[in-house]
C-alpha cells in the first residue's frame, strides 16, 4: 500500500511504518499468512523430552537430505568398469565400477567429501534408530489410540520406507560389503515362489549383478523413496498439528486441553536450537568415527566375499532370521522351494506387520471408540506394555542373530551356540519377556496404590511411648494423588447371557468370543490392580486405618 496518502483519517499518516511491519504487510497482502499465523503461532506444545524423539528423526532426515544433495553432485551412478588411478595407494590399478571410483573420489579428493559422506551415513543410522525409539514411545504411552491410528501408520510407513531407502543407499557405492548385501537381497527375492525369478530378472535387468542396478537403486534412493517419505512426513506433521499433541496426565491436564508452551516464541526457539544441536552431535560423531570405509572394503566382485558382511542395523533383524534359519528346501518337479530363505522373508514382514497393526487390534479388543489425548503410563496398561516389550525382545533376538559371528568372537563363544540361542530364543524370549514385564507392571501398580492409600515411605522410624516402632508415612500432595489415579481402567468384556429375553439361545460369533476372551486377558483381575477409590482413600485417611 502506498504511504503517500496524507489524509488525517489514515493512521499511517503518523509516518512510515517500521520496515519489518511493511515487509509483513507486503507478504500478507499476497500470501494471506496473517490469519494462518494467528491461528497457529500460539499453538501449544507440551514439554517433555520424550516428545522430542520425533524431532530428532525429522532433523536427522533434513540433515540426510542436505548432505545427500551434496553427494549427488559428485557421485556417478554407473557400473562402467574403470581402472583406479587416484590417491588411495592400496587400490592402484584395480578395476572397479564408476560408482565405486566416484565414492573413493568423494572420500579422498572432493573437498569435505568424506565428512559429508560420514554425516550422511551416521545420520541415516541415527534417523532409523530415532524412529524406532519414537515409535516405541508412542506405543508404550498408548499415543496411537483414536484419533491417531492413521498417523501411527504414517509413522510406521516412514520407518519401513526408511529401511529400504537406507538399504538402497548402502548399496550404491558398489563396494564388496554392499554388493554382498545386494546379492543377499537377490537371493531372498529368488526364494519367493513363482514370481521370484521374474522379479529378480526385472530388477537387475538380467542376471545378477548385471550393469543396471546401481543406476536403478540410485533413482529409487534419491528420488522415489525420499519423495514419498517427505510427503509422508509432512502429512505426519499436519496430523500432529491437527490432532494436537498428547500429554501426560497431571493436574490441570484434561482430554480437552493441552498444557504447555506456545509455538512462538518458546517452542520455535527450542525446536530451532534443537535442530542445530542434533546437527552438531551428528557432525561430531561423523568427525570422530568412520563409517563404511569403502576403500578398506574394496570394489564388489561376485566371486569375492568377506566375513563380517552385515547390513546396517535396521536390516540386521532380517539378516539374523536368515542366519538362524535351518537350510530347509523342498524339491519337486524340477522346482526348488528354498524355505531356508523364504520363511525368514515372510517372518520379516510378519514381525513388522504385527506392530503396525497393533493399534487396531487393541481398539477392537477394548471396543473403545472415544478419543484419547492423555497418555498412559506404561504400567497402567500391563498387557500392552508386556506385548511391546515382548516385541522389542523378539526384534533384539533377530539382531543378535544378525551379529552372531561378532558375538561369538568377542565373547569367546561358539557361533553354533549363538545360533541355537537365536533359534530357541525366537520362540522363548518374547514369552519370558511378556510374563516378566507384566509382573513388573502389576508390581508398580500395587506400589502406586500403596502410595496413594498410605503415603510415601519417609524412612523415618519413630518409637511410640509404649515401645512400638513405626515408619512415618508422608501423605501425598493433592497433585500427586491426582496424577497417580487419573488413569481409567477398562472392565473386561462379558459375553452376555446365554439366552435372550425370550429364552432363545443367543448366537455369539466366534470372533466375539475371541474378543471377550482377549479382553479378559487384558483387563481381568490378574491383569490389573484396581486403583484406589475415593471411599478407600477416605476410610484409610480418616484416622483409624493408619498403621
Amino acid at each position: 500500500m502506498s504511504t503517500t496518502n496524507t489524509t488525517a483519517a489514515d493512521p499511517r499518516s503518523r509516518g512510515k511504518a517500521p520496515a519489518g511491519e511493511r515487509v509483513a504487510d507486503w507478504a500478507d497482502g499476497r500470501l494471506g499468512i496473517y490469519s494462518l499465523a494467528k491461528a497457529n503461532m500460539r499453538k501449544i506444545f507440551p514439554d517433555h523430552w520424550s516428545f522430542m524423539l520425533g524431532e530428532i528423526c525429522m532433523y536427522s532426515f533434513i540433515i540426510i537430505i542436505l548432505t545427500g544433495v551434496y553427494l549427488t553432485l559428485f557421485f556417478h551412478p554407473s557400473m562402467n568398469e574403470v581402472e583406479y588411478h587416484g590417491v588411495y595407494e592400496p587400490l592402484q590399478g584395480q578395476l572397479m565400477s564408476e560408482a565405486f571410483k566416484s565414492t573413493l573420489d568423494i572420500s579422498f579428493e572432493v573437498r569435505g567429501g568424506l565428512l559429508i559422506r560420514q554425516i550422511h551415513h551416521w545420520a541415516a543410522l541415527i534417523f532409523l534408530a530415532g524412529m524406532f525409539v519414537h515409535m516405541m514411545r508412542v506405543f508404550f504411552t498408548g499415543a496411537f489410540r483414536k484419533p491417531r491410528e492413521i498417523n501411527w501408520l504414517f509413522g510406521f510407513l516412514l520407518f519401513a520406507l526408511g529401511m529400504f531407502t537406507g538399504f538402497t543407499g548402502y548399496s550404491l557405492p558398489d563396494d564388496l560389503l554392499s554388493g554382498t548385501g545386494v546379492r543377499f537381497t537377490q537371493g531372498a527375492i529368488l526364494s519367493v515362489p513363482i514370481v521370484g525369478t521374474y522379479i529378480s530378472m526385472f530388477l537387475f535387468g538380467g542376471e545378477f549383478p548385471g550393469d543396471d542396478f546401481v543406476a536403478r537403486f540410485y533413482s529409487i534412493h534419491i528420488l522415489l523413496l525420499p519423495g514419498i517419505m517427505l510427503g509422508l512426513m509432512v502429512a505426519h506433521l499436519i496430523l500432529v498439528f491437527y490432532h494436537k499433541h498428547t500429554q501426560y496426565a497431571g493436574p490441570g491436564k484434561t482430554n480437552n486441553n493441552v498444557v504447555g508452551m506456545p509455538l512462538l516464541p518458546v517452542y520455535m526457539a527450542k525446536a530451532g536450537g534443537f535442530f542445530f544441536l542434533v546437527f552438531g552431535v551428528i557432525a561430531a560423531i561423523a568427525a570422530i568415527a568412520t563409517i563404511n570405509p569403502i576403500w578398506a572394503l574394496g570394489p564388489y566382485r561376485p566371486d569375492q566375499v568377506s566375513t563380517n558382511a552385515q547390513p546396517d542395523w535396521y536390516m540386521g533383524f532380517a539378516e539374523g532370521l536368515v542366519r538362524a534359519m535351518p537350510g530347509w528346501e523342498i524339491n519337486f518337479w524340477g522346482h526348488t522351494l528354498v524355505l531356508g530363505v523364504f520363511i525368514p522373508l515372510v517372518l520379516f514382514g510378519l514381525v513388522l506387520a504385527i506392530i503396525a497393526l497393533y493399534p487396531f487390534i487393541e481398539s477392537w479388543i477394548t471396543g473403545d471408540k472415544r478419543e484419547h489425548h492423555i497418555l498412559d503410563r506404561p504400567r497402567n496398561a500391563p498387557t500392552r506394555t508386556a506385548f511391546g516389550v515382548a516385541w522389542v525382545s523378539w526384534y533384539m533376538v533377530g539382531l543378535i542373530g544378525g551379529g552372531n559371528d561378532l558375538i561369538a568372537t568377542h565373547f569367546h563363544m561358539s557361533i553354533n551356540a549363538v545360533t541355537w540361542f537365536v533359534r530357541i530364543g525366537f520362540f522363548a524370549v518374547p514369552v519370558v519377556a511378556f510374563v516378566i514385564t507384566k509382573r513388573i507392571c502389576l508390581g508398580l501398580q500395587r506400589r502406586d496404590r500403596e502410595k496413594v492409600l498410605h503415603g510415601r515411605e519417609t524412612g523415618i522410624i519413630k518409637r511410640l511411648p509404649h515401645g512400638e516402632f513405626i515408619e512415618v508415612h508422608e501423605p501425598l500432595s493433592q497433585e500427586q494423588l491426582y496424577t497417580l489415579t487419573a488413569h481409567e481402567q477398562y472392565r473386561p468384556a462379558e459375553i452376555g447371557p446365554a439366552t435372550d429375553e425370550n429364552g432363545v439361545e443367543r448366537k455369539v460369533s466366534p470372533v466375539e468370543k475371541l474378543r471377550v476372551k482377549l479382553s479378559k486377558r487384558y483387563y481381568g483381575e490378574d491383569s490389573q490392580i484396581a486403583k484406589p477409590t475415593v471411599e478407600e482413600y477416605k476410610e484409610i485417611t480418616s484416622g483409624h486405618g493408619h498403621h
Partner: protein
Amino acid sequence: MKKLSARRRHPLAAIVVLLIALAATGGLYAVFAPAEKAQADDTAQSLAIEEGQKLYAVGCASCHGTGGQGTSDGPSLVGVGAASVDFQVGTGRMPAQQPGAQIPRKKVIYTQAQIDQLAAYVASLGAGPEIPTKEQYDPAGADSAAGGELFRTNCAQCHNFTGKGGALTKGKYAPTLEDVDPKHIYEAMQTGPQNMPSFPDTTLSEKNKKDIIAYLDAVNSDDTVSHGGMELGGFGPVAEGLFAWVFGLGALIAVAVWVAARTAKAKKS
C-alpha cells in the same frame, strides 16, 4: 730294568701308569675312531637337532609323541616342516596351554634360538616347508593393490576385509592379522596352521604372498592411517550400528532431556 723295578713302589708310580694308559687310549682312539672331518659343516645342524630334541622331549612330546609321531592329543609332526614350528612356537600358540577348539596366540615362551633348534629337530623328522628368508617375506616393493585383490579373493571370507578376524564354526575362529610379523603371515600361508587351509607356492606364488603381506602392512598395521576417524574395530555395520545407538542416539536423547528441562521463565520448575 733295575732302575724301573727299583722305582716300582714309588708313590707316584700309579699316576704315571695311569697317564701312560690314558695317553695310549687317547692316541689309539684318535687313530682308529671313525673320521668326522667329512661332516664338519653339519656340526652346528646336528647340534641344533640334538638340542631341539631335548627341548622337544620336555615341551612337546607329551602331546606329539616322543618321536613326533603324534598321539590322540596332538597331530604327527612328521613332514610339517620348520616353517610350521617357527609359526606355531614363534607366535606362542605352541606349546598349547589346554586343548580346545583352537589354540590361541599368546606370549612366546621360547627364544628365537630355541625355536630354531626345535624347528631343526622337527624338520629332521621329514621334509617340509623351510623357514622363509627375509627376501621372501619383506613387503618392500611389493604391489599392495594386487595383494588386496588376492586377499579379498582368498583370505577375507574368514579374516575380514582388512584382516580383523572372524568367527568359524564351533568356537573356532580366524584370528586378527593386526601386527602379525610378516614372516609368520608368510609361514601361515605356506603351512596352513590349525583350521587354515595351506597356500603352497603352487597356489599362491612367492610374489603373491609378498603382495598380500604388503596389503596387510598398508591396511592393518600400526602405521595404517584410518582416513575417516576411529575405525571402531573395522568390523563393519554391527559395530557401527551399536555406536550409532549408544553414542549417537544416546547423546541426542541426553540433549533432548537437557533442552526439555530448560523452559521459559514463566513456568517454575
